[in-house]
Every structure is written in structure tokens, then in C-alpha cells.
């Protein structure tokens, strides 16, 4: 592989993030296999539900199956099961002091690396489950491929915005495992990974569809299926990306004052 040394800083960081995760390709393929198996199991449950209630939530049976494999494909790039950042360990070990004195903003640094990671995991953990779903059940074709790719990218950015906040909170909370568990619960349930948010009943359903987690898996899937207006879905994602990144920037400033560097 080329070194990427000729690239400007942030693309270079993204390239390093890509390469770093590409080094563990057997683990990524194992993840793709597991995501596919769970996709198959979930698909059967959704088929049974949609056979009992055809057209539920505005989806046909084929849409529901496609939705299932699309959300499974989001697990890797959007890191729906974990934080996926080195930051909590670096905060605990104190290495974060080094990150904070670099002449580049910490948040942008992490975002660049994370986008590289997501790009690799999109290839290794998103494409295989989608292809397997297409081969086993048949999935529908994307309505607006360009808008879908934009939506996936925005979904990664929203997911990064959220995970960055959780990771940086380790500066104030002693046990970061509790926060990671809370984030896991919120993300798996409210992203659309377990069931489409469109079938959640009443006001609870409306609430789940407005929360930031809906921008991570539900929104890209709806853009793919054409069950959401692409412009509206992308605007919804962009809004949450802006809000979360702004909060992250504020929290980084607070962390800068919180971290005490021990000299020596």
C-alpha cells in the first residue's frame, strides 16, 4: 500500500484509519458473517410479522426484508454495538494530554480517523450481508443510490458525533463501562436495528423517529427504500450531525480545562 504521506493532514488520517482496520480483515469478515446470520434470523421474524400485517409501516414484505439487511449492514460503519474510539483508554492512561496539545483539533482528528474506519467496514461488513440478503431472500434495488450514499455518510457522522460525546464523558465519569452500556441500549433500540421505527406505536413512535439514533440506521434505510423523502431525511441527519458535533466541540473545550498534565 502507498504511505499516503503526500496527502493533506485529514485525508491522510482517514487513510491511516482505513489501513489500521484493514489489517484486521479476518475479524471484519467474521463480523460480516455474524451480522449476516443475525440478519437471516431477523428477516424470518419480520416476514412472519409482515405476513400477519401486510403493508405495516408503509413497507411491503420485500421492503421489510431489505430493511433488515440494510440495518445489519449499518452495524459496522455506524458502530452500533460499541464506542469504536480509542479515546476512553487514552483518557484513562493520560495519553489524551498529547492529543490535546497537537496543533489540530481533537474532534476533527478523531472524525477523520473514524471516517477511514467506516469506509473500510462499509466494504468488509456492509456489502457482504447485503449481498447475502439479496441471494437468500432477494432485496429491492435502491431508489436513489446517490442520496443513499450521502445518507450513509451522514449516518456515520451522526454516529461519530454521539460516540465522541460518550467517549469524552470519560473525563468526568470514573467508570466508562456504565456509559458504554447506556449508549449500547439507546443505540440498538432507537436506531431501528431491532425493528423499524415506523411500526413503533403512537407518540412513542414519533419520539423515536425524531431522536438522533434514527439518523444512524433508520434514515439511510428509508432513503434506500424510497419510504422517506431523500431531501427531508438528509436534512434531518445533517441537523443532528451539526448539533452533536457542536456539543462535542463545546465538551472538548471543557475537557481541555479539566485535564491536568503532570509534568516530569
Amino acid at each position, binding site marked *: 500500500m502507498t504511505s499516503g504521506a503526500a496527502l493533506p493532514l485529514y485525508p491522510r488520517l482517514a487513510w491511516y484509519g482505513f489501513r489500521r482496520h484493514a489489517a*484486521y480483515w*479476518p*475479524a471484519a*469478515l*467474521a*463480523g460480516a*458473517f*455474524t451480522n449476516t*446470520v*443475525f440478519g437471516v*434470523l*431477523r428477516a*424470518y*421474524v419480520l*416476514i*412472519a*410479522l409482515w405476513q*400477519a*400485517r401486510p403493508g*405495516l409501516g408503509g413497507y411491503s414484505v420485500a421492503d421489510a426484508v431489505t430493511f433488515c439487511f440494510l440495518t445489519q449492514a449499518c452495524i459496522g460503519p455506524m458502530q452500533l454495538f460499541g464506542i469504536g474510539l480509542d479515546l476512553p483508554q487514552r483518557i484513562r492512561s493520560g495519553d489524551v494530554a498529547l492529543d490535546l496539545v497537537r496543533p489540530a483539533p481533537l474532534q476533527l482528528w478523531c472524525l477523520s480517523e473514524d471516517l477511514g474506519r467506516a469506509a473500510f467496514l462499509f466494504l468488509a461488513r456492509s456489502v457482504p450481508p447485503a449481498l447475502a440478503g439479496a441471494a437468500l431472500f432477494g432485496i429491492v434495488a435502491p431508489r436513489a443510490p446517490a442520496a443513499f450514499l450521502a445518507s450513509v455518510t451522514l449516518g456515520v457522522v451522526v454516529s461519530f458525533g454521539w460516540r465522541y460525546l460518550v467517549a469524552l464523558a470519560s473525563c468526568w465519569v470514573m*467508570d466508562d*463501562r*456504565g456509559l458504554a*452500556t*447506556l449508549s*449500547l*441500549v439507546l443505540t*440498538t*433500540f432507537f436506531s431501528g436495528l*431491532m*425493528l423499524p421505527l415506523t*411500526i*413503533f*406505536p403512537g407518540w412513542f413512535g414519533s419520539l423515536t423517529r425524531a431522536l438522533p439514533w434514527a439518523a444512524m440506521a433508520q434514515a439511510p434505510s428509508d432513503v434506500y427504500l424510497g419510504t422517506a423523502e431523500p431531501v427531508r431525511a438528509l436534512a434531518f441527519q445533517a441537523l443532528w450531525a451539526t448539533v452533536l458535533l457542536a456539543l462535542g466541540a463545546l465538551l472538548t473545550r471543557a475537557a481541555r480545562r479539566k485535564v491536568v498534565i503532570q509534568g516530569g
Partner: protein
Amino acid sequence: MIRTYALLVWAWTRAAAQYRVSFALMAAGAFVIGGLDIAVIWVIFANTDSLAGFGPAEVMFLYGTSELAFATSDMLFGNVDRISQHIKAGTLDVMLVRPVATWAQVAADRFGPHRIGRVVMAAAVLGVALARLDIPLGRAWMVPVMVVSGIVIFTSMFTLGGALQFLLTDAPEVANAFTYGGAMLNQYPLSVYDPRIVQGLTYVLPLAFVNWRPGLYVLDRPDPLGLPSWTGLLSPAAALALAAVAALAWRAGIRRYRSTGS
């Protein structure tokens, strides 16, 4: 082996008890994670009265029995699936030279008592389901038998997954598809799946004996595959057979293991 296992588990429990708030939060977290599955079942039945021919109480019964078995097995022995981390870190060598069964050491290592939260949630769901179903005693005796058989079956799956990691040290997540996948599979009536899958889970990998076949007996429902209802009583036999296979696979894995040395 049992005595050493209990001793190691007790040591880890005492370690966890030193951080009470952390323990309470983690146990509450495990309880809520278990509750997510129930929330999904709630959303499904907010949209339909019956899923593949089963009502909400019946699905909760099937979920509760499988989940209670899986959560218990995961808490007590689930750490067997961390074997690849021990292989990579070299800590497996330390375990091999100790005069205690390796399996017991790996299973007890970093025992997490907070996982009791998920067990409590599963037991609560099963309790509610049983209260709503009103099953006669003549068939209800099978419920504890199927839960214990389920614990043995899931523990065997964890062990098989661990044995697989001797081959796939760099890709341990493959094992999750079989362990956690097996748990996910049994959360819903197997009638939602393709009959060929159910046949495979009856004759090849006996996951259907965790809760589906004995559950059909307890609920007094006909088998979609047409097998007689007494086959549901074969869970203990299926569990022992799988445990024997898992023990052989584990031994083969240990024998095949070659340390990288120092």
C-alpha cells in the same frame, strides 16, 4: 473441578463487591438490555395478535424459557468464548500448567456477577408468562427440566464456540453467530423459520430442544413437522449428547494448541 470453579467464581464476586455502585449500575444495565428484547416483542404484538400462530403469552413463555437458560449459561460459563483473547495474550499457557481443568479456569476467569440482571429479567418474563398461561401440573413439570437442559445446551454451544477459536483465533466473532445467534433464534416460535431450518435444529444441532420441542409439549400444541409430542421430552438426552460432542471438540482444541513460546 467444581470446587475450583466455585472458588474462582467466589473470588471474582468478592472483587466485584468492592465497587458496589459500579456493580449495581452494571447489573441494572444487564437488566435493561434483557428488557430490550421484551420491548421488541411488545412492539410486535402492538401491531398483531398472533405471530406465526402464537399469541403474546405463548411467545413470552418461549422467550422466557430460552432466555433464562441462555442468561444463566452466559453468566456462569459464557467467558469460555474469550479463549481467543487468552491465546493471543499468552495467558492460556499459564492456565495449562496449573493442576486444574483448563475449561473451569477459562469459564471462571473475569466472572461477571452483574450478569445476574439479565437472569432476573428472564425469570420475571417467564413468571408473568406462566401466570397468564395457566398450564396444568401434568405438563408444567417439564418447565424446570427444559430450563436445565437449555443451560446444558447453551453451555455446550459456548464450549463449541471456544473450541472453534483454536482454529479461528483471529476471527472469534464467528463463534458469536452460533452462541448469541442460537439464543436469538429461540426467542421466537421456530414456526417463523423455514421448516428445513427447524429440521436442522432438531436432527443436527439440537437447539430446537432448548424450548421449541419441549415448549410444544408444555403448551400442548401440534408440531408443524409432524413429530409426536413425546419427542419434546427428549431435551435432557439431546443436551447430554451435545455436551459430549462439545467436550470432545474442546479436548481436540486443547491438544491442537501450540503456544508461540516466549
